[in-house]
């Protein structure tokens, strides 16, 4: 019993992280149809900015570094939209995808050139690793924080999407961008907002990713973006609710594979996951639980 509860808690905290990441990809996709593979680099930037602040000023308080990391992620996300993605905004989806790959390579190599290929350590507070007894299982402080932060962020996002004008505009733009402009809403603002939200979610996820690793390196964004991408496809790309579900599903799936798969084939985990992605893409493009909509299609 304890073991089961423990594993469920693990799945929740991993899944929460994936949900944040997937949501960040999905929100940009839903608004402008861009599969933003440079999203992993937003995470890396958050990490490197925290590292730089620490290295220059010596500040190692998590309460100072964390908001800085999140701000950096929001900033770079908005900046990338302005510089790299705006010129290809009305181009076919493939053009945007390739631009994103290009941006990803540029940012990665920027860190390789200016910092180092080797990883650099970022201070993580000891108390994150403390264990708390919660009756049936033990939980790490970081897991607790992560799950809470995910829940709060999701709640906040729901509020924004339902209550604010810009939130409504983002949801509306997911279906009919031109019409949003024809009620007088500035297209650039809606897109910038989508990138800001996306950056915020990446920044939040980045904090927990870095807290676990304790180091930053130029290639650290690769695995998270791939996971986010998988989770988003599982949830039906572009569906925000689907991205969250996909994230938790992927978390659960990974924990499940870890328990069930014998060590000899556990290395094939990624292959299984991507076979699943293909199956879903071909036979259930609306995602695991989505409504009937073709992948990436917008309503007329």
């Amino acid at each position, binding site marked *: 019993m304890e073991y089961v509860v423990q594993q469920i808690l693990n799945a929740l905290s991993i899944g929460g992280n994936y949900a944040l990441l997937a949501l960040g990809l999905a929100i940009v996709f839903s608004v402008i149809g861009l599969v933003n593979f440079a999203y992993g680099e937003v995470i890396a930037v958050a990490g490197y900015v925290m590292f730089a602040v620490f290295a220059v000023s010596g500040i190692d308080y998590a309460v100072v570094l964390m908001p800085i990391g999140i701000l950096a992620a929001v900033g770079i996300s908005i900046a990338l939209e302005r510089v790299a993605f705006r010129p290809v905004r009305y181009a076919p989806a493939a053009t945007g995808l390739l631009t994103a790959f290009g941006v990803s390579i540029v940012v990665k190599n920027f860190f390789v050139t200016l910092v180092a290929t080797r990883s650099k350590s970022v201070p993580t507070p000891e108390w994150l690793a403390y264990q708390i007894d919660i009756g049936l299982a033990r939980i790490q402080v970081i897991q607790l924080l992560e799950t809470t932060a995910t829940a709060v962020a999701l709640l906040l996002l729901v509020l924004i999407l339902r209550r604010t*004008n810009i939130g*409504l*505009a983002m*949801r*509306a733009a*997911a*279906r*009919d961008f*031109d*019409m*949003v*402009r*024809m*009620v*007088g*809403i*500035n*297209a650039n603002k809606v897109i910038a907002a989508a990138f800001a939200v996306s950056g915020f979610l990446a920044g939040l996820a980045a904090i927990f990713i870095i807290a676990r690793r304790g180091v930053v390196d130029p290639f650290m964004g690769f695995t998270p973006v791939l996971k986010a991408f998988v989770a988003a496809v599982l949830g039906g790309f572009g569906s925000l609710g689907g991205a969250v579900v996909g994230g938790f599903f992927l978390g659960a799936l990974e924990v499940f594979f870890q328990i069930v798969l014998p060590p000899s084939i556990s290395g094939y985990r990624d292959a299984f996951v991507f076979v699943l992605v293909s199956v879903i893409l071909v036979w259930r493009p609306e995602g695991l639980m989505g409504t009937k909509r073709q992948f990436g299609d917008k*309503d*007329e």
Partner: protein
Amino acid sequence: MLELNSVSVDYGAVKAVQSVNLRVNEGEVVALLGPNGAGKTSLISAVMGIVQVSSGNIRFEGRDVTLAPPEEKVRCGIGISPEGRRVFANLTVAENLQLGGSAQPDKAIRAEQLTKYLEMFPILKERYHQKAGTLSGGEQQQLAISRCLMSRPRIVMLDEPSLGLAPVIVERIFELIAELKASGLTILLVEQNANEALSVADRAYLLHSGRLRFEGAAQELLNSHDLMSHYMGLGEAQ
């Protein structure tokens, strides 16, 4: 108020609109008629800035707005209820109306407009918290019209408001247009449904294959059986 000077629109090699001159004066209802494929919606999209004008210019209240993006045009006071209604199906009626008011900075005016149009379109009040996608065609049309009125535009362009609706609903929509006219709103009404449109319009333009074929009083066009049957494909009985 709204003035189009030799406006042309191309899609690659296809000339959708050729050198159209069109004028809408304050307080007028102007009908823009033409059969399917005449270029009416292209012209409206060009006025809104959704498609680029390839030559000519568009002036609104004396100001050149040819190159202004759609959001800026709405902020200047041009409202549109587009062809096919295009309500935000995944948003509620209330949310659709809220977005419709985005271009109006004055909160008091927005509230006033909301009360006014919920009164005028009582069905929207009834369906206020329903998703717009669940509304019937006629209800969606009413929502699309009131959405564009939320920002209190000085001119509205209604693109095919009767398209695809049952006759009894079409009648209701034209009654509403007459009501809006009575309230002093300036309207550019784009229609295939010529007789109904001409009955509410002051003046009319007839567009065919991207060119203007007629311009004048609505009554005059209504009486000209030749023009109507030739360009609108109406039967001899008309």
